[in-house]
């Protein structure tokens, strides 16, 4: 007898699919085109729906959730403006390879193209910023499209996938069948690296005199941090990390050189410049890392491990590419190396660089500085917190002064550099992370870009610590204006136009603090750590015109690195 399949509505199929994908949380905002889904959601008990205040917030929350857990973040919004509001979040997820699936409502299929109310061609709009997207035009394709969306988002190099759901498709019915396996002729992510290539790489590491591991976010995404640790510890290899790679290797370990690149440490950049073997692991030779391409690690034999073949030879031509999952490749590399390289001299040289030019800031003039706050925060949390930063000076200082010891504990917008990321992303992370403090750090500029989501945190009693580093400037832009644009501080001064952040926090119902005195930092942080029944907020009014050092100017070489503010006299 033939098995009969259940007949279900589009909305029922939608939720049945989410159930099969083990979705626990959806960040969304209802609207006309998704009414039927929200009607059905009323009876759904296996997942939590978080009502946001702006769809961009939903997209960043899904990113924060995905980055913190490695699971797929899910967004549900309506057509037209609901869909277009997620675009920045989708682009952000695309640049940083974050697995999210965005469901957008759409006008009924027969009205598509008619400039109907709240219509936008979101599939067309998001084509260049998604890993893939679907317009479901037939209810019979609904289940398989959702199945594929989750599969594509979470496998290979992860990324955002958008599924557009026309209203009539959701309203109609069909027999439900969930495809057990996904078969796509055009998509077969390559997991295992080429054996011979791995053997060659192992030989190179064994013989290297000045090796360096250059670790990116791919190591964290693949869950390869243990394998990395094994490889690095057993062979005494120095490790430098990109912004997205921070935490892949414990930063309090003496083998960690910290971050490399534009605002990386002096010694990490010197190591890159002088190494004879550069092993790139799940990193993409971004311009913020390489500076001037022609002068980047010129003397090094370069090995590049990446799951995305397009990353190889895109910016920097490498000598030995290995396409594959970095976790697998790391494990095999570690097993393949029989004797560690002899690199004592190399380490001596690195230590010399570390002494030559350590991270430095003015501690004795009684003024409050971001670096100090971060050092105290590191002390309070022992590098165990999940830190979610925004974009700008505070982000770079965090990468320098907070010692991330675990993967998935540094969440930030790297590739796209999205101001306004921190507040919603911290909220998304806090829904998943309950055993460690979640701390959101923003500048006064970026904080105001998505501060409407504070109420989402308050309503759900999430114990997030919102920290605002207020220097009354768009600090990083100001820094570039001072260094490279003739000190024309065009539209970066917010001194006269910032709100009262403490009152703002209180208006949202949060215990809020504000200070400009270093001696009050400890007591505020301590009190914030005690508040666990809801979010709290602290505004730190820091020195206005501080700059992040070291800095290698855009497109420059390490020789042009500036390590401190030049005294006007020295400049003459």
């Amino acid at each position, binding site marked *: 007898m033939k098995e009969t399949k259940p007949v279900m509505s589009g909305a029922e199929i939608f939720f049945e699919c989410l159930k099969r994908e083990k979705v626990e949380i959806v960040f969304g905002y209802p609207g006309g085109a998704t009414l039927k889904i929200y009607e059905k959601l009323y009876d759904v008990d296996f997942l939590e729906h978080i009502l946001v205040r702006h769809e961009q917030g939903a997209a960043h929350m899904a990113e924060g959730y995905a980055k913190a857990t490695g699971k797929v973040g899910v967004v549900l919004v309506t057509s037209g403006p609901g869909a277009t509001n997620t675009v920045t979040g989708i682009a952000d997820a695309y640049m940083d390879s974050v697995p999210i699936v965005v469901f957008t409502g759409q006008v009924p299929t027969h009205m598509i193209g008619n400039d109907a109310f709240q219509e936008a061609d979101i599939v*067309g709009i998001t*084509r260049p910023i998604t890993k*893939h997207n679907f317009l479901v035009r037939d209810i019979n394709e609904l289940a398989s499209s959702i199945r594929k969306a989750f599969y594509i988002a979470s496998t290979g190099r992860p990324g955002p996938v958008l599924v557009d759901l026309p209203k009539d498709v959701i309203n109609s019915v069909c027999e439900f069948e969930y495809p057990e396996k996904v078969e796509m*002729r*055009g998509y077969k992510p390559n997991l295992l690296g080429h054996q011979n290539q791995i053997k060659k790489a192992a030989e190179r590491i064994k013989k290297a005199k000045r090796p360096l591991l250059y670790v990116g976010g791919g190591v964290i995404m693949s869950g390869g941090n243990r394998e990395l640790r094994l490889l690095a510890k057993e062979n005494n290899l120095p490790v430098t990390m990109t912004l997205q790679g921070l935490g892949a290797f414990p930063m309090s370990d003496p083998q960690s050189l910290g971050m490399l690149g534009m605002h990386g440490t002096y010694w990490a950049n010197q190591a890159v410049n002088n190494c004879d073997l550069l092993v790139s692991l799940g990193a993409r030779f971004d311009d913020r890392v390489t500076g001037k391409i022609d002068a980047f690690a010129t003397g090094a034999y370069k090995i590049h491990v990446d799951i995305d073949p*397009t990353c190889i030879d*895109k910016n920097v*031509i490498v000598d030995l590419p290995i396409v594959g999952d970095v976790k697998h490749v790391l494990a095999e590399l570690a097993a393949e190396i029989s004797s560690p390289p002899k690199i004592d001299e190399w380490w001596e040289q690195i230590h010399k660089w570390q002494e030559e030019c350590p991270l430095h800031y003015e501690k004795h003039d009684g003024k409050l500085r971001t670096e100090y706050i971060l050092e105290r925060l590191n002390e309070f949390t022992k590098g165990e917190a999940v830190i979610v930063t925004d974009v700008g000076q505070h982000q770079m200082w965090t990468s320098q002064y907070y010692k991330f010891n675990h993967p998935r504990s540094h969440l930030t917008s790297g590739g796209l550099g999205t101001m306004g990321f921190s507040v919603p992303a911290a909220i998304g992370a806090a829904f998943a992370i309950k055993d460690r403090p979640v701390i959101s750090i923003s500048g006064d500029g970026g904080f105001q870009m998505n501060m409407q989501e504070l109420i989402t945190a308050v309503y759900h009693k999430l114990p997030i610590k919102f920290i605002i580093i207020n220097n009354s400037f768009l600090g990083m832009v100001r820094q570039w204006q001072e260094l490279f644009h003739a000190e024309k501080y065009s539209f970066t001064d917010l001194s006269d136009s910032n709100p009262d952040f403490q009152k703002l926090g209180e208006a949202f119902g949060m215990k809020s603090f504000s200070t400009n005195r270093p001696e009050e930092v400890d007591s505020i942080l301590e009190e914030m750590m005690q508040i666990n029944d809801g979010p709290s907020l602290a505004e730190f009014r820091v020195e206005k015109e501080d700059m992040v050092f070291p800095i290698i100017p855009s497109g420059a070489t390490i020789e042009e690195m500036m390590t401190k503010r030049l005294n006007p006299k020295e400049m003459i």
Partner: protein
Amino acid sequence: MKHTISVLVENQFGTFNRVVTMFSGKGFNVHSMSIGETESPEISRMTIVTEGDDKIIEQVVKQLNRLIDTIKVVDLSGSPKVERELALITVYYQKGNRADIISVSNIFRGNIVDINNKSITIEITGPPDKIEAAVNVLEGYGIKEMARSGTVALKRGEQVKADKKELQQNIQV
């Protein structure tokens, strides 16, 4: 250097757009792009003629492969292939030179597909360089308008010397 890239893609809504969007988003050059069904209706073949140095072409091929809807990407440059393009060219004629134009068309094995009292339309098929040559000659007469299909290409079958015995058997049959 020009490269001819043959791409098998899913014959689906939006696939062509995905490829075009990728090319414009990455800033790659496109000389021509043509698409049509293959022997199996759910698969289309795109033939893309693009230009760039080796590094760029490598990226073009990788980026094409990266698209979910692409099934197979082959750079045909450097391997034996058959390339064809079709052009429709309308040329003005004056008293006395109509026969000249027709003879040019004949030299290029073109067909006359339309004529009126002012102009004559020629259909020419062949490798792109042949079309270029024909256009070059016809320009002297005054081209009114022109439409080109873009290149389509297939890899040549492997040339295997036939076995003598097999040949004889075939003859007997």
